C-alpha cells in the first residue's frame, strides 16, 4: 500500500495559533514531515495606508501591529522619524519612554507565558499571567487612558508626564509581579511533564539561528548575546545596567527560561529609570505640521518579540514616501518548519508558542 501522508490544516481558526495563522502540515500519523505557514488573513495593507497619512497620524496605526506590545511599536517608529528629522528628545522623555517600553515588555512576556503554558496544557498559568498583566494595564490606563492600543509615545516625546502618584503605583506593581512569577515558576520550572514537553524540543543551533534571521528571546536562548538595547543603545538605555539572559541549547525550555529572566531584568530597568528620572520637559518643541526634508533613516529597537526595525523615506512633504517595517515575528516564524520537522504534532503547538509570534505584526 503506497504511503500517503496526511495534509492537516491547523488554522486559521485554531485555539493555539495566536491569531489568524494557517499552518499546512504534512503529517505521517502525528510525525511532522513539513509545515507551510499561510499568511495574509490579517493583512490590512498598513504600509500602503501609511503612505497616505501624515507622520503624526501613523503613530496610532503602529499600535495595531504587535497589539500585545503597542508601545514598543510606537517607540520603534517614533525613534526612526526623530532620527530622520533630526529631532533632539529631552532626557526626561527618554527615561519615561524606557519606563513605558519596559512595562510593555513585562505585559507582553506575561501574556506570552499564559498563552504558551495554556497551549501545553497548564491552563491555570494563563490566568496567573493575565492577572499580573492586568496590573500593568491599569498603569497604562491611568497614564494615558488606553490599555491595549496605547499610542502613549509621540514624535518628540511622550503624551503625558509621570507624577509622583503614578511612580509609587508603578513601584507597587513592580513588587507584585515577582510574587505571581514565583507561582508560575514553581508550577512549571521543575515540573517533569513541563520538562518532557519542552526540553530538547524545537532545538536550533546558534549559527543556524543567525542564518534564519532569528532575533530576540528565541536567539538568546541559543546563547547568542544579541540585544539591541546593549549593541546599539537607543533612548538612553546606556544609562541603565541590566544583564542579557542567555540560554544554552536553544530549545523551547530555554526560550521559556530566557523570557522569564527578562521579566526580572525589565523590573530592574524600570526601577533604575524611576530612580534617576531627570527633571525637564517631557516633550520636545514640535512644529505644528511636521515636514521632513527628503532622506532615509533606518532604526531598530529590541521589542519583546525580537528586533523591530523601521525604514522611512521622506520626500519633503508631511507624509512619508515609504515606511517599511521589519517585523521580528515575521522572520522568526520562518524557522518554524526547521524546528518542527521530525517532531510530533503536539510539539508544533509548543514550539509555535515558544516563538511568541503575533499575527498583527506578521501580516501588517
Amino acid at each position, binding site marked *: 500500500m503506497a504511503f500517503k501522508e496526511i495534509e492537516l490544516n491547523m488554522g486559521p481558526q485554531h485555539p493555539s495559533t495566536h491569531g489568524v495563522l494557517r499552518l499546512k502540515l504534512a503529517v505521517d500519523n502525528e510525525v511532522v514531515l513539513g509545515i507551510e505557514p499561510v499568511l495574509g488573513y490579517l493583512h490590512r495593507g498598513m504600509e500602503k495606508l501609511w503612505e497616505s497619512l501624515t507622520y503624526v497620524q501613523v503613530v496610532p496605526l503602529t499600535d495595531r501591529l504587535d497589539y500585545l506590545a503597542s508601545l514598543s511599536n510606537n517607540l520603534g517608529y517614533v525613534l526612526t522619524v526623530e532620527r530622520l528629522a533630526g529631532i533632539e528628545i529631552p532626557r526626561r522623555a527618554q527615561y519615561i519612554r524606557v519606563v513605558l517600553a519596559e512595562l510593555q515588555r513585562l505585559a507582553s512576556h506575561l501574556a506570552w507565558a499564559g498563552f504558551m503554558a495554556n497551549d501545553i496544557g*497548564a491552563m491555570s498559568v494563563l490566568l496567573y499571567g493575565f492577572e499580573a498583566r492586568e496590573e500593568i494595564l491599569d498603569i497604562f490606563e491611568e497614564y494615558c487612558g488606553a490599555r491595549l492600543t496605547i499610542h502613549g509615545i509621540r514624535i518628540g516625546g511622550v503624551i503625558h508626564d509621570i507624577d509622583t502618584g503614578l511612580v509609587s503605583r508603578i513601584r507597587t506593581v513592580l513588587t507584585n509581579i515577582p510574587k505571581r512569577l514565583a507561582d508560575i515558576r514553581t508550577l512549571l520550572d521543575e515540573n517533569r511533564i513541563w520538562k518532557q514537553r519542552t526540553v530538547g524540543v524545537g532545538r536550533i543551533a546558534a549559527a543556524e539561528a543567525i542564518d534564519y534571521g532569528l532575533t530576540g528571546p528565541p536567539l538568546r536562548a541559543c546563547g547568542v548575546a544579541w540585544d539591541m538595547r546593549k549593541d546599539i543603545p537607543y533612548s538612553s538605555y546606556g544609562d541603565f545596567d541590566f544583564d542579557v539572559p542567555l540560554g544554552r541549547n536553544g530549545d523551547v525550555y530555554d526560550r521559556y527560561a530566557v523570557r522569564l529572566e527578562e521579566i526580572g531584568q525589565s523590573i530592574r530597568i524600570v526601577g533604575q529609570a524611576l530612580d534617576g528620572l531627570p527633571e525637564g520637559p517631557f516633550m520636545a518643541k514640535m512644529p505644528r505640521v511636521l515636514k521632513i526634508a527628503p532622506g532615509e533613516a533606518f532604526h531598530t529597537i529590541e521589542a519583546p518579540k525580537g528586533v523591530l526595525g523601521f525604514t522611512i523615506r521622506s520626500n519633503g512633504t508631511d507624509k512619508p514616501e515609504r515606511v517599511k517595517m521589519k517585523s521580528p515575528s515575521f522572520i522568526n516564524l520562518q524557522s518554524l518548519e526547521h524546528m518542527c520537522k521530525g517532531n510530533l504534532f503536539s510539539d508544533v503547538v509548543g514550539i509555535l508558542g515558544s516563538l511568541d509570534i503575533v499575527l498583527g505584526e506578521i501580516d501588517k
Partner: protein
Amino acid sequence: MTPFVADLLIPVGKIIAVILYPMIMVMVMIWLERRVVALMQGRLGPNRVGFQGVLQPVADAAKLFFKEDIIPRQADKRLFNISPILVMFSSLLAFCFIPLGEPLRVGTYTLTLWIADSPVGLLIVLGLSAISVFGVIFGGWASNSKYPLMGALRSVVQVLSYEIPAGLTVLTVAFAARSMDLVEIVRRQESSGIWYGFLMPVSFVVFWISAVAETNRAPFDLPEAESELVAGYHTEYSGMKFAYFYMAEYAHMVLASSLVVLLFFGGWLPPFQGVKALAFLHAVPGFVWYLIKIMFFLYLYVWIRATFPRYRFDSLIRLVWKWLIPLALANFLAVALVRFLR
C-alpha cells in the same frame, strides 16, 4: 411484604435509583469542576444560575438539549449515532455492580444497596468500562474528519495500555481479599482492620494514575486536547450527542473514583474502625462515608487538571510501558510472595 412489592416495586425502584445516582453525581461533578478550577485560578466561576451557580449544569443540559444536532455530511451515520450511546451505556451499566453500603434490614426484607452482586463483580466493572473505548473509536472514525480521527487513535492506544497496570493492581487487591466480589473485598478490609490503600500504597498510586489516564483526564487528556486537536474525538458532535459524551466522561470519573474507594479505601467503612474511642463514627451510615471519600477523589481529579500541563503522546506511552507496568508487576510479585509466605 407481598411478592408484588418485593419482586417488582423494589427492583424497579432500585433500577431507577441506579440511573439517577450517576446522573446526579454527573451534575454535581460539572458544577464542582467549573467552580474548583475557577477558584484555583483566582476567579469565581459560575455563580449566576441558582444559588452559587448550582443550577448551571441544568442550564448546560437544557442548552445542549435544544442545540442543533449536526451530523457531518460524509459521516458514517450509523456509527456516528451509536457511539455516544455506547459510551454512556457502558458507564451506566457498570454502576449496577457498584455496592453503596451494607444491606439494610427493612422489617423482614433485606434491601441490598446494589443491583447485582456477582463473585466476579470487579472484572465485570473493568470490562464494561473498557467498552467505552469502542464508542470513542466509532465516534472519531465516523466523524470523517482528521482531528477526531487522531483523537480517537490516541484514545485507543492510551486506554488499552493503561488497562494493563490497572488490571495488575486490581489483581493484587483480589489477591489480598481472596475474592473478586466487591462487597467481599470491602468486608475483607473491615475484618482485616486495614484498608488496602495503606497496605499496598504502590498499588493504589499505580491504579489511581491508570484511572486518570483511562478516563482521558488531565494530564493525560490527549484524545481531547483542546489546544491541539480542537476537541479531539467529539469535535464534530453537537447537541444531545455531545452532552452524552460530556456526561459519559464525568460518569466514568465517578465510576473510577468509586472503584478506588471500594478497592483501596474500604468503601462504606468509617475511618479508624479499630480505635475504640472513635466508635461513635459508626453511627454515621456507610453510604455517607462512601460519598465523602468519592468526593475527595473527584476533587483530586479537578485539582490535578488545574495544575499540570499535558503529557505528550510518546512520553505518556513511555510512562506506562517503562514505569507503571514494571512497577505493577514488581508489586504484584511482592504481594504474591507475602501471601505465599504467610
